């Protein structure tokens, strides 16, 4: 208890930054669930590919700590672009290969989950075997820095050294904290406006509300679904960069636990509800930090799941309810 009081503000800030990453990944789950009623189990891999390509792009550009401000900004922008493009493409490819054929055959929902699990295994193993894959082309030596240590944690060059910017009571908020939180909230506002105001966003909401009626009204369902996956992937790509800036390491299976947490966040806020995912992410991030301060860090994941169970008992459709379709036009 004393620990929680002493470190309240540092726990709060780190909880919010963690929650921002959860929320961004949770958006991908919630979007796809809203449109397809499908738990996109492989979304965690979409995120993981974002972390790797962002890391490689920085390594390729020779990123290092203590560089001038324009260089740092340039690197971060490149990271974002690369990660968002890769994650978006992986998500769209995933939909094409693993889900669309099933949809065409009217497969039962459970089997889509199996396809998703299969895709998740395959994607994460491909990354875990990247040294062997490069070996086929005789490139494993040449690309050693990129593909080596395929099964271990790999660290991204620290391009943005955390420096205190201002202080809340006793915790020094760093530039990384600010970048992560502001960036994540910005992304979410853009997404929210996209879904609420744009033509494609209206299509997404229509399909979420009633796929058949939407099809009758001339909404191209396949296209809407593709856009949904693309948008979810882009959000995961952004989350990947924030994650790298904050945590600094990644691994071929780094997506798994984060994916489970993000999905928990999505359910917590009410799956299918964009603002719910946002709230769920922050609540989960904060609760994890406070909870682990109270009863010990080894119980961090238990706190997250217990919170989920308790909230679902009292609000069976999550904090904000499920309403991707019902958002006002």
């Amino acid at each position: 208890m004393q620990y929680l009081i002493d470190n309240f503000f540092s726990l709060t800030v780190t909880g919010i930054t963690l929650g921002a990453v959860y929320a961004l990944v949770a958006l991908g789950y919630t979007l796809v669930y809203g449109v397809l009623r499908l738990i996109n189990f492989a979304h965690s891999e979409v995120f993981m590919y974002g972390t790797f390509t962002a890391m490689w792009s920085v390594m390729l550009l020779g990123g290092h700590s203590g560089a001038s401000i324009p260089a740092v900004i340039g690197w971060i922008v490149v990271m974002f672009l690369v990660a968002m493009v890769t994650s978006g493409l992986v998500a769209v490819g995933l939909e094409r290969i693993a889900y669309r054929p099933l949809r065409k055959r009217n497969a039962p929902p459970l089997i889509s989950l199996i396809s998703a699990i299969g895709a998740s295994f395959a994607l994460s193993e491909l990354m875990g075997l990247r040294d062997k894959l490069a070996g086929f082309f005789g490139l494993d030596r040449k690309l050693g820095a990129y593909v080596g240590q395929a099964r271990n944690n790999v660290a991204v060059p620290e391009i943005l050294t955390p420096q205190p910017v201002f202080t809340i009571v006793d915790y020094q908020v760093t530039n990384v904290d600010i970048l992560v939180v502001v960036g994540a909230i910005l992304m979410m506002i853009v997404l929210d406006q996209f879904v609420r105001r744009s033509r494609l966003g209206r299509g997404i909401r229509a399909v979420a509300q009633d796929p058949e009626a939407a099809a009758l009204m001339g909404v191209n369902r396949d296209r809407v679904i593709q856009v949904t996956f693309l948008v979810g992937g882009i959000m995961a790509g952004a989350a990947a960069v924030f994650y790298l800036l904050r945590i600094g390491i990644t691994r071929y299976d780094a997506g798994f636990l984060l994916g489970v947490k993000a999905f928990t966040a999505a359910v917590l806020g009410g799956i299918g509800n964009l603002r719910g995912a946002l709230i769920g992410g922050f609540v989960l991030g904060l609760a994890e930090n406070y909870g682990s301060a109270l009863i010990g860090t080894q119980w961090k994941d238990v706190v997250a799941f217990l919170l989920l169970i308790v909230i679902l008992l009292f609000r069976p459709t999550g904090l904000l309810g499920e309403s991707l379709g019902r958002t006002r036009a």
Partner: protein
Amino acid sequence: MNVFSTTLERTKALLERAKGMPKPAKIAIWALFVVFLFALPVLNIPVITTPDSDFGGVLFTVTTYVLVALGLNIVVGYAGLLDLGYVAFYAVGAYTVGVLGSAHAHLPWLMTVPIAVVAALVAGVIIGAPTLRLRGDYLAIVTLGFGEIVRITLINSSWLGGASGITEVPRPPSLTVFSVPHLDWSSGSPIVDLGNTTTFLKFGITDQIPYYWLALMVIFVVIFFDKRIKDSRVGRAWEATREDEDAAELMGVPTFRFKLLAFAMGAFIGGLSGALFAGKQGFISPDSFPLLLSILFVAAVVVGGAGNRKGIILGAIVVAYFPERFREFQEWRVLVFGLALMMLAIFRPQGLIPPRRTVRAKQADQKLEALEEGTASDA
């Protein structure tokens, strides 16, 4: 794909012909099949036998998967509840045996098993009672969370052995009846190898075959009860609940109670397989119960065809056996497994052996469609 479906068609035709046989012949064939299953580990048939790991141990793993799949099938297949934390019940069963047999008491294995099974059942009711009112996908994530909670609690609780687990778990009591020699195929043709024998039901450390035999016997008992319960009023209530919960409730089926029953029975069988696992392994730790295992269990059920007993047994064999058989490609096998799951989902979306009701439902759908199109011949 085509080769696969033609073999399937052929097997179907063969089964169709088998159905027409007189009853004594059918019984004889089944008896032969059962004998074959028991003899499998000593026969050492070249292609089937796993080259890189002990075949008896692999067979035992396969049988535990089959047992778990039978239990999970009640939850997922019959009652239609998606449980992503089934490994928790498996862990509860195993740890009850560990705690009562080694860590805090020294009961013999046979006495711990009933307690373990009841403990798993109680855990099932405790988890099921608050969560079964939730809708499908919420249930999935809550059970997943519960599985993780159990695993983390095991790691962090020193009373339960912490991360290093519990050692010297009691083994099942041995019963030395007779010895069976193995077959040796190293010269190309089978030779009875009298130097390498397995004693019937002598539960030691090195020879895993007796455990396989024990698990096989348990499976037959479970299948017997599973068959009876599926064809009973309870089984029909599960089917009604799965197909349309509201309609079932209106027809007077207390759906919540039946769902809870399915959950508890699934947990019961999960605990039983956990107890078997602990007795064979002699050592349990939280590492034996990762989240991945829950997912593999669900994969076994869905791959085979949720709701079809033969299907899920086949599914469990596929999921447990192939990764062991192809151990020489150790590094690639998870990748191949993932790809195989995707292929399977795309090309056989109803599972390897779809349950009969879906075939029936499909026909009803076709009829309905024909009526809507106005092309029905007998409408």
